[in-house]
């Protein structure tokens, strides 16, 4: 097979055979140890309460119960988790003094089976002193709000004011200023497989082994080791071959690794816990709900000169790492695809009595672009310009790449204008506008929305420090953070077949397929001759702090490591073959699965031939060559630097681009939204497998649609979750999926080995924006502007009813919002 022929093809996924026939190996399938006991977690029914005590005696007396771990044991045996802010938030694997959200673990019951464990969990008595709750991030900062963490003194976990350029001057000199307030909902991912943990404590060796569907980042490994008081080389994390989806959510499983690990250590039995769906909705993880105040300053021709963001991000009862990534993960791409240089970001990270938050597909970018793209449309409306035109006037142009953003991002490649144009052509934008004119003339509500987004992938660990004050970061004892690395090992067995070993934790992305394509191209073999092993094991794999499968990083960093490892091995084969031929390596070349003389006649050596000789007869190796046919490569980005003194950071390593157009029709009588056109064009550099890419885009789009229209972890004022089952937490299904038209523009990344970028989060970050713009455009005749998601039928109906009833009255001018200072404007130290 000629080289270069597998990358770019829709090779069928090697994973699908086993997955579609029920042969996947998930955490719940294969007990790795015998005699497992089963855990049920006792959870708080209260949003906010002081714990006066625990009484597990009745539970301990029940049939089949092995033991009970309470918050008292947790307090005695664990240290709190490290958090990403300097505020003294003490976050333990289970509540030790107070509960701060409904569903917070307060005890673990371990029994012979899960049924008995759940029976006994009902018998654990926890004595609560119920306290008033607060769930709204703005209300939580009011002076009389209940305080969750007395040691912090307020509910503000962190606050930063980041200034880039001269926003005050930009606003002072602006010809037009548009202001708006937005609310973004708390929603999650609901992967089909929930969390699962199995822990075994080996008291003789002092090793705790934890199997789980944890996806990384493996920074959580030292974090958990510290909580349990274990040396890192006595804590073993193993991830089974298959994970049933995650979309970021499973990065936040780590408190349970500590909790179930502690149960195994304390009770001396291997313990298994599989999270059920109710627990998952109640207490796993979600994105933050956010209140955002936005301002854009522009010239009358639509040129944006500056923006101001003021955010209140609600991280729930505790700030759990990697939060406050909700605010800072997109630091490098705060400006999106636009050229403006002046920006002020005022970010308050607030704790309330809701469940905890963390990465959720598009981590913080769904929020960011919903606000920005709505603002662009509002600006266009104010200026009477076409929203396409306003965007075009502000796009970073093609000649500027690589482009350094004012916030420190380094956009590696792109052609934003061409991508937007492709989306407009595919959507027949002008025809959509004509259709809209016809619809409006007929009294129908038809609207067209646009959304553009810079799609960041491969987080640079360094961004987390943006949450810290520069003065704090300047202290000599402070250790700067940066990096994004992945490893891969490629080895050839004595009969010439290839095994690639990864340190990744795929959750359905198809790493085995992708790696087999890459290795097949590099070594000139068929993908079926490449076996890919991706069962992460911290004792045997080469890994680092940033390892894992998150932040759409495999398409950039993992694939680079694989290609580099294969190339290393190829170089060794070339050197070996040249030695066998009695020529210099410069006189041979690797092609078609073997090593050939560049000129002159000589029998080529196939990989199989070389592998057999190298393994069976090490005497045949050239002098000084290391025996064995294996190569490991660790790929890291040199552009991943620590945040600088001016709060600039290249928060990701590769940056793709998305341009979308959507047309909707709204039924004003039922408030139903019908998507009549949806076009999404992506630039993710080199595409390795178009079919897999398409699947990611479909999934991302549906995920975004969930947040825009259906999904919300809604709470009442007492902090009770109102959407705790799939009857109430509505995940869009195939029936809700619109037709999705996908196209690509390819601007290869200069930073990755193959030119590829990540794409796993993709349209999850644009759909909330594009549909909000489309619906706002549809309802413009009624003066309706969407500023809050999800657009539930009730909310939309209320807007329509209010608009219709005030239609006869003059419309009040949209007044500028006040810009209240946060309750505690002093940055925390």
């Amino acid at each position, binding site marked *: 097979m000629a080289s270069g022929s597998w990358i770019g093809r829709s090779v069928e996924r090697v994973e699908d055979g086993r997955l579609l026939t029920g042969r996947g190996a998930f955490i719940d399938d294969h007990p790795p140890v015998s005699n497992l006991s089963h855990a049920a977690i006792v959870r708080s029914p209260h949003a906010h309460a002081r714990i006066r005590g625990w009484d597990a005696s009745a539970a301990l007396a029940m049939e089949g119960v092995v033991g009970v771990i309470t918050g008292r044991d947790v307090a005695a045996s664990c240290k709190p988790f490290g958090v990403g802010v300097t505020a003294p938030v003490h976050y333990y694997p289970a509540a030790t003094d107070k509960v701060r959200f409904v569903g917070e673990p307060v005890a673990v019951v371990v029994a012979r089976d899960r049924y008995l464990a*759940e029976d006994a969990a009902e018998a654990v008595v926890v004595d609560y002193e119920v306290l008033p709750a607060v769930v709204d991030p703005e209300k939580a900062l009011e002076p009389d709000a209940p305080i969750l963490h007395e040691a912090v003194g307020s509910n503000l976990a962190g606050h930063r004011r980041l200034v880039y350029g001269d926003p005050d001057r930009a606003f002072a000199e602006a010809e037009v200023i548009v202001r708006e307030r937005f609310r973004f909902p708390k929603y999650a991912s609901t992967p089909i497989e929930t969390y699962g943990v199995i822990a075994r404590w080996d008291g003789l060796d002092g090793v705790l082994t934890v199997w789980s569907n944890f996806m990384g980042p493996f920074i959580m490994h030292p974090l958990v080791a510290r909580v349990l008081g274990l040396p890192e080389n006595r804590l073993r994390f193993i991830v089974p071959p298959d994970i049933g989806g995650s979309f970021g959510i499973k990065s936040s499983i780590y408190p349970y690794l500590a909790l179930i690990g502690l149960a195994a250590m304390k009770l001396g039995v291997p313990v298994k816990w599989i999270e*059920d*769906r109710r627990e998952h909705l109640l207490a796993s993880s979600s994105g933050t709900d956010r209140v955002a105040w936005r301002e854009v300053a522009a010239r009358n021709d639509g040129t944006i000169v500056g923006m101001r963001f003021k955010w209140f991000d609600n991280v729930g009862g505790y700030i759990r790492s990697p939060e406050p990534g909700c605010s800072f993960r997109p630091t490098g791409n705060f400006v999106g695809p636009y050229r403006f240089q002046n920006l002020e970001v005022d970010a308050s990270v607030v704790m309330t009595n809701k469940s905890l938050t963390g990465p959720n597909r598009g981590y913080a970018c769904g929020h960011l672009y919903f606000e920005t793209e709505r603002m662009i449309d509002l600006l266009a409306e104010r200026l009477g310009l076409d929203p396409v035109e306003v965007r075009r006037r502000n796009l970073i142009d093609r000649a500027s790449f690589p482009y350094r953003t004012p916030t420190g991002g380094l956009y590696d490649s792109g052609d934003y204008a061409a991508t937007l144009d492709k989306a407009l052509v595919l959507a027949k934008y002008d025809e959509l506008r004509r259709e809209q004119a016809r619809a409006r003339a007929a009294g129908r509500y038809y609207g067209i929305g646009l959304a553009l987004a810079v799609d960041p992938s491969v987080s640079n660990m360094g961004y987390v420090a943006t949450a810290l004050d520069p003065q704090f970061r300047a202290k000599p004892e402070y250790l700067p953070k940066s990096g994004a690395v992945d490893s891969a090992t490629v080895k050839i067995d004595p009969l010439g077949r290839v095994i690639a070993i990864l340190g990744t934790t795929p959750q359905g992305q198809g790493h085995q397929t992708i790696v087999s394509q890459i290795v097949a191209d590099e070594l000139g073999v068929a993908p079926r001759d490449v076996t890919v092993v991706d069962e992460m094991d911290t004792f045997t794999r080469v890994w680092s702090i940033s390892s894992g499968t998150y932040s759409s990083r495999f398409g950039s960093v993992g694939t680079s490591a694989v290609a580099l490892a294969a190339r290393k091995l190829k170089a060794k084969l070339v050197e070996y073959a040249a030695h066998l031929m009695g020529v210099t390596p410069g006189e041979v070349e690797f092609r078609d699965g073997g090593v050939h003389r560049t000129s002159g006649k000589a029998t080529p050596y196939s990989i199989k031939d070389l592998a057999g000789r190298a393994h069976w007869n090490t005497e045949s190796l050239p002098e000084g060559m290391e025996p064995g046919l294996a190569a490991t490569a660790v790929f890291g980005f040199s552009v991943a630097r620590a945040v600088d003194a001016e709060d600039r950071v290249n928060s990701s390593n590769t940056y793709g681009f998305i341009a979308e157009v959507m047309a909707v029709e709204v039924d004003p009588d*039922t408030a139903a939204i019908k998507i009549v056109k949806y076009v999404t064009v992506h630039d993710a550099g080199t595409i390795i497998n178009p079919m897999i890419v398409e699947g990611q885009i479909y999934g991302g789009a549906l995920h975004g649609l969930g947040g825009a229209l259906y999904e919300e972890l809604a709470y009442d004022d007492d902090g009770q979750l*109102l959407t705790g089952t799939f*009857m*109430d937490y509505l995940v869009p*299904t195939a029936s809700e999926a619109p037709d999705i038209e996908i196209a690509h523009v390819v601007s290869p990344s200069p930073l990755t080995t193959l030119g590829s970028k990540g794409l796993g989060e993709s349209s999850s970050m644009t759909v909330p924006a594009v549909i909000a713009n489309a619906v706002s455009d549809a309802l413009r005749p009624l003066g309706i502007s969407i500023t809050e998601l999800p657009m*539930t*039928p009730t909310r939309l109906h209320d807007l329509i009813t209010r608009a219709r009833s005030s239609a006869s009255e003059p419309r009040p001018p949209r007044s500028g919002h006040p810009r209240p200072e946060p309750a505690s404007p002093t940055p925390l130290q």
Partner: protein
Amino acid sequence: MKPPRFEYHAAHSVDEAVALLGRYGGDAKVLAGGQSLMPMLNFRLARPAALVDVNRVAALAYVREDDGVVAFGAMTRQRTIEFSPMVAARLPLLREATRWVGHLPIRSRGTIGGSIAHADPSAEYPAVLTALGGEVIVQGPRGRRTVKAADLFEGYLTTSLGPEELLVEVRLPAMPAGAGYAFEEFARRHGDFAIVGIAAMVVRDGARCAVARLATAGTGPVPVRLRAAEEILERDGLGDAAVAAAGARAAELVDPDADVHASAEYRRHLTGVLTVRALKRAIAGATS
């Protein structure tokens, strides 16, 4: 999400099932399609001492016409009803409503008797039973009795059936030839329980309306027969003004609750909108 301990009995006849229910003195639940009961058990919202499984009672699965009445054995699956030629011919409103019931796997297990006995006010079958003025036959320790739709639904998930009684048959009067019908529903997603559903049937007599039938799903604790709206049509005919008046009246006749999916006001509004839409479609399909 594991149920507490319970006894399990697989009944093979109606008599055996009723005897088992009697043995537990009201502390047993009937397991039909299990589409609502199983989640309630797993959530520990229902904690019966025993389940009486009637899936093996072959005598409870039938569809037959009997003197102008279509009779359904309680264990007739929704999927069977969806494809029954007799239902298509004699109860096309029920057939249309069935397509709104959940998704294929749910309809494959779910039964007409289970849906009605469960009495979820947002479900489609209780609305159709109410609109068409059907009845159910129940069997208990003291024999069989017939309960009319109007006397069946007492509140949210509550019927007038005794705890030792088993719903054995659902009876719906066959729709008159030429009747127009429609089932209109608004739900946030395909297959969800209705936010509001409207079952409508009209029998035309020239320009006059001989019979109008309207009932709701999702507008309160029980399905609501919209008799006063029906009367407008039967009095004023089937013109646009009468239809609009019936819709407005329908909205006044319901007293919906608010929940996380819809406000009471929105449900009331939808009742009017969907009544008009259902009537327009029903009228368009009616032949005199």
